[in-house]
């Protein structure tokens, strides 16, 4: 083997290995910093109090944690049924031109920048309501969940063998019952995975919340009022000039990432035990 070929081979192998290391370094660095800088600031006050006025030390993000929960609840109520519904349509009824159109629009919706979804939610909900609200934030995030959930549901339903459907229909079970209790049930592990991934994806979203949920320094549990969210609070605190707020931004980010990675990991654990392995 010529020297050059051997050199090229070793060079390429080294490059690929270095690339892998270089990609994993930022990941480890981000997690290390989150834990190092965030852990010290996550305490009872952080988890139970509302923010102090600018410049004062102390306070926490309790209202933002609850606000994120509120917004995500609204988003799930909107996004999951519509997403699963259109997924069922695509898999069970949608093998035609119209199904292709829906599939294409779902892909389009998936690629729309989140900030643009924010603008749309602003002009569709905030403008008619005349003020920022938790509901409008939930609408924005809910819209973002739909394509992910729909395509996951479709893919999982298509993995259910047709024989199962035919057996159910042959027993005289109506189609709606077959779809819900047989097909969807069989595919449930995969569908839940899709839902959780969509949930994790929108949980950290900030851009669409800037001018829908808007943020709030106080407690709010009403859907029609401006609401704090963890991601928004991290953003505001990170670009603020106060050292104490920077610390709290790290703490908020740590709580947020635990929420998201927790969701993803929970999915990994449940699906690796379920029927649809590798979903």
């Amino acid at each position, binding site marked *: 083997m010529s020297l050059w*070929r*051997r050199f*090229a081979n070793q*060079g*390429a192998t080294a*490059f*690929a*290995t*270095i*690339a*892998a290391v270089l*990609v994993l370094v930022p*990941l480890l660095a*981000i997690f290390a*910093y989150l834990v190092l800088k965030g852990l010290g600031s996550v305490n009872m006050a952080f988890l139970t109090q509302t923010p102090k006025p600018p410049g004062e030390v102390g306070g926490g993000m309790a209202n933002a944690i609850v606000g994120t929960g509120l917004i995500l609840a609204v988003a799930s109520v909107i996004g999951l049924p*519509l997403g699963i*519904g*259109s997924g069922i*349509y*695509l898999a069970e*009824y*949608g*093998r035609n031109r119209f*199904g*292709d159109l829906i599939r294409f*629009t779902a892909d*389009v*919706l*998936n*690629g*729309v*920048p*989140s*900030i*643009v*979804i924010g*603008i*749309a939610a602003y*002009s*569709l909900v905030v403008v008619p309501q005349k003020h920022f609200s938790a509901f409008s934030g939930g609408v924005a995030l809910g819209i973002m969940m*739909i394509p992910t959930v*729909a395509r996951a549901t479709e893919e999982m339903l*298509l993995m259910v063998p047709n024989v199962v459907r035919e057996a159910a229909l042959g027993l005289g079970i*109506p*189609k*709606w*019952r077959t779809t819900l209790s047989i097909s969807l049930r069989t595919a449930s592990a995969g569908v839940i995975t899709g839902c959780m991934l969509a949930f*994790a994806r929108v949980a*950290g979203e*900030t*851009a669409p919340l800037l001018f829908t949920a808007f943020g709030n320094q106080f407690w709010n549990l009403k859907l029609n009022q401006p609401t704090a969210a963890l*991601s928004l609070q*991290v953003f505001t605190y*990170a670009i603020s000039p106060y050292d104490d707020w920077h610390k709290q931004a*790290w703490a908020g*980010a740590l709580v*947020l990432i635990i929420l*998201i*990675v927790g969701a*993803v990991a929970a999915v990994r654990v449940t699906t690796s035990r379920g029927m649809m392995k590798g979903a």
Partner: protein
Amino acid sequence: MPDNVNPMNPPEPPGQLQKPMTSIPPLAQADKRREPGIAAAGLKKIRNTIPRSSRIPDATFGVIILVSAISVFAIVVLVVWELVDKSRLSLHQFGLSFFYGHDWDPVNGNFGAVPFVYGTLVSSFLALLLAVPLAIGVAVYITEICPQRLRAIISFLVELLAAIPSVIYGLWGIFVLAPLLRTYVEPFLARTLGWTGFFSGPMYGLGMLAAGIIMAIMVVPVIASITREVMTAVPQNQREAVLALGATRWEMIRIGVLRNARIGIVGGIILGLGRALGETMAVTMVIGNRPEVAKSLFAPGYTMASVIANEFTEATGDLYLSALIEIGLALFIVTLVVNALARLLVWSITGGTARVRA
């Protein structure tokens, strides 16, 4: 067969339902052909035995499902309509000059989007420049080089990179990456490559370079996962054949795998571009937010997405708001085109799910 058919009843195009009846004697066949067909009639008869009460739920279910599918379409139409409607003011006022005007002057009501378009293009290009070699390297490492045991772990970690919210990238960018750039990387670049003009001027840390690097980290998992997918779609025979001809591992990867997967890889890169163009929070936090066109990558810039994020809630006056929404509309159209292109390319390699199943 065709000779036996009654001339009064010319053979119908073979429909799905008639197919099984080819063995039925010709006379009977001709007789029944006037009706919708045995099977169809039979189906109808069977369906009639189902009580009406149990047919209603089926129809209702179908309608509910159809409505939720239509809602996806309706949402996209609504989004487009709102963007066009709300940016009408600015569209009328500036027309095309919006996209070659340099001034962004809200006080005097003068809006030109050039600094933002420039910032978006340059930061995305920079991100791709850094991310593409890394992403392809990682994909090659995972599919061809890495020991079997590490494969799942490394691909999981790379995917995890995609799960980190962009606001956390931004936070990390402000407090870790920017100081690092300011004290070590930027002085080094200015010393060695300062003569190019791309690396000169005051070093803030925050700026176009920081935005490009942060976005590169965010785009790597997108490109890497698509590249990995198209590389695994290359048949194993291909690899074995090239190896059997005496190729080294790298030659096998280059000739046997990458060359076959290149269209899909390009698709993945374009998909990454789509992600980079629309990226908002991380970029807003590290790019410095100054609406200027500067040659140096150390200088602060501004992108289309970050100007919307920063100024939307502070926009005073309808024209200002309308100009911002027009930027959003432009962003929507660009990402739509980019994503459609990417999907076509990826589908052509992996035979996309939609095509095969439709």
